[in-house]
């Protein structure tokens, strides 16, 4: 093999390793929802290219209120779906939309836009 071939192959393999690590292996640590005086566990989530934060940690048995604020117009993110809770909410651009849930059991529950391009996790302890 010629040197240029070696370089291309090595760079390519390194790139693949980077893609695997960047998209699949590294996971965010999560954001613990703050508890309000009303007994709700609240978190503010920004919707722009994804959910920020995308991992919310809450305790089970207490109501959760997630306030979504969408700051983009891409049509996919105009809805957020909590499939495990049978809940969904429309997210008009620029408006804060509260989604209330009552996680009864511990576990990990995903939420996503209808096409599944944006994903978040609700970790119930």
């Amino acid at each position, binding site marked *: 093999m010629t040197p240029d071939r070696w370089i291309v192959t090595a760079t390519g393999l390194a790139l*693949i390793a980077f893609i695997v690590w960047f998209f699949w292996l590294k996971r965010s640590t999560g954001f613990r929802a703050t508890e309000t005086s009303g007994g709700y566990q609240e978190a503010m989530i920004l919707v722009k*290219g*994804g959910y*920020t934060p*995308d991992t919310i940690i809450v305790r089970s048995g207490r109501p959760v209120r997630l306030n979504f604020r969408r700051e983009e117009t891409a049509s996919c993110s105009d809805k957020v779906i909590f*499939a495990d809770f049978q809940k969904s909410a*429309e997210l*008009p651009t620029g408006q804060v939309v509260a989604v209330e849930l009552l996680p009864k059991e511990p576990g990990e529950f995903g939420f996503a836009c209808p096409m599944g391009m944006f994903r978040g996790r609700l970790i119930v302890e």
Partner: protein
Amino acid sequence: MNNSGVVNTGSESGAATATSEPLAKRQRIDLRIGGMTCAHCPTAIEKALAAVDGVSGAHVNPATKIARIDYDPSRTKIASILQAIRAVGYTVGTATARIPIKNMHCSSCVIRVELALQMTPGIVSARANLGPNAADIEYQPEKVDFQEIRKAIESAGYRVAEPKIDPQSETLDPSEAANDEEYRTLMRKFWFAAVISIPVMALSYPDLILGLRDWMPMGSDARRTVWALLGVLSLPVLVWAGSQFFTGMWDALKHRAANMHTLIAIGISAAYAYSVVAVAAPGVFPNMALAEVFWDVTDVVVALVVLGLALEIKAKGRTSQAIKKLIGLQAKTARVIRDGKETDIPVEEVLVEDVVVVRPGEKVPVDGKVIAGASAIDESMITGESMPVEKQMGDEVIGGTLNKTGSFRFIATKVGKDTALATIIRMVKDAQGSKAPIQRVVDTVSGYFVPAVMILAVLAFIAWYNFGPEPRSIFSTVIFVTTLIIACPCALGLATPTSLTVGIGKGAENGILIRSGDALQASEKLDSIILDKTGTITRGEPALTDVVVTPGHDEQEVLRLTASLERGSEHPLGEAIVKGAEARKLTLIDAEGFTAIPGLGVSGRIDSHDVLFGNAKLMRDRGIAVQLQQTDWERLANEGKTPMYVAIDGSAAGLVAVADTVKPDSKAAIAILKGLGIEVVMLTGDNERTGRAIAREVGIDRVLAEVLPNDKAHEVQKLQLEGKSVGMVGDGVNDAPALAQADVGFAIGTGTDVAIEASDVTLIKGSLMGVVTAIEISRATMRNVRQNLVGAFGYNTLGIPVAMGVLYPFIGLLLSPLIAAAAMAFSSVTVVTNANRLRFFQPRRTGS
């Protein structure tokens, strides 16, 4: 009846005196309560209010239907008071409105507007939002009008944008407007990229065009200069027309995610970068022939993908047409009687208990009960029933339906977001937003899809660079770009939700509310359906069916006498006979000496005839021979009817039978269900004989008779244990446990009560054809979803390897990145268009 003029006044002064107390900070509010029909209502509401923290006193006046509540505003909000009242099942006469506000730009503005509104007496809650630049308020229309609301906003230094409040702008417009804007921007970008593509394409391949080949031969300065100019021309295409790919990629990268934008952005920038190197430093290539430019790839890919995105937005807009239609049904104004005068007011200001006047050709504004007049109303938009429905005093009317023939007045029972139409819109939106189980597979795949495509593209690059034919760098670059561009995660993502949106919307158009994607998918697989007899197969109320007379008696006369006698009775069977006689246009008269003999029958004197009507024991007691009627009696009883003897002047005159009659299209619906391969089972609390008789009439073979109401759920379970997927059709009240137990619970709706909790599917029109339509819609939708999924998966699994060039060693096939871009753009449009085909679904009609 309508006390709107009387409401209030006391509150402001009450609040003033109360707040002057220094220690207990108190405020008083008067709320108009709706739905109070019984004696214990006030107590129930007072109890509920007393339980709210911060409420120090509550008194409900049953006559004026006003609750006067003292509360501490620092401990409770009016919103929680309203919630407490609604939680015990009553409505509160508040209305909601969205008021557009000008020059509100910062978050402190929001707070100032909210405060100003919340301080206004009569406004229950206010929330301002920067996005739509509007405030959503809940208010008591009898206390505060728009003038005062506007004054409050202006006092805070802001302006109300439009004086007119348009209820239709409320629900869908913000996203609709955003979509339109997005569409226009994308189309501008498309035209820009397309126009630039033409010269760029032509001049990028000068060797193919005769004159150009000679004028700018390979390696010449002329060619380099032209190519450099093309690069400058293509730059705005990359950075402006293609900007959403880069911002989309960046936003996703921040979340360690990748999407379609990532693929396109890498693809077009790789093509652009290669071209820049080819023009600026052709020396780095070992061979001059390698210094090719791919400006055309950048331009055409941007143009096509942007066009695809624009078309997708348009097509996706059409998928929610059904819900737009529903929203459009809402009336804008209502004519109510206030202070004894007919006044036109915005529909948001109609209160529970208001008397509303509707003239021919007008929309019924809210839900209610007719109190005067009669008319025929077209309810097809809500129930799917095409025939106009006759309405008279006491009948329910549904908001959003169209009054056809007569004028009438009705009393409003549900307003605002409590109306059937508002509930339907909410339920349909929720269902359209839910996920079908089939979507979970897609979700798993799409989480890995884009990074996997990136890896494949890199692998293809390495393979082509190492083993491909010369010129290797060109081949591997083109292959890399093509692989990235042909992959279409959008088609995968769109496959299920778009079909679901159209399918559930189609259901709503036909009076069928499918609650979720789960319900839709489960309905498709049903192989057994249990029908409750009473109220589902049958009308649920007795009707006159037969009059059999002994020779010498006239049928009409016997019925006239019996019905006249029964006019005094309050028994439901008696009512059925009276109705039946009236339907035959008989003139009834009052009976003299009417006596009800408990458990036996009735007697009286009509037109100087002694008439006796009742069961066999009554006849025996009075010594009347009924042997002659015995065979007829048995025949009728075997048919599931309830026959009773009539004796006139001491001798048997015949039999009058009543029965719960079968709804007109039950038989046809059951036949179709069987045709669809579904086993139909009838469930009834009645005895075997009555049950069998009805089952025979409608063509059901399997009958579960004498089932106690509590055992219905158990019967469903028994059928499920046979390994069947069971649907249960019944009313939402008595059958709730059985509906919940079934794989799919179909609730037969009654009038405006559409939000039946236990059900997965609500049939607004009480016809069994609704079950047929629901199943057919679910089958059509799921078929559509599968087509979409097969198409989207198939496209990607075929397209990506071909783009990677796996066919090249065998048949020499390579895809151009331009073809890949076209395929990618149109694959997602195809998916959405296929989903839109569902809009043409037509439900079967009986008799066709």
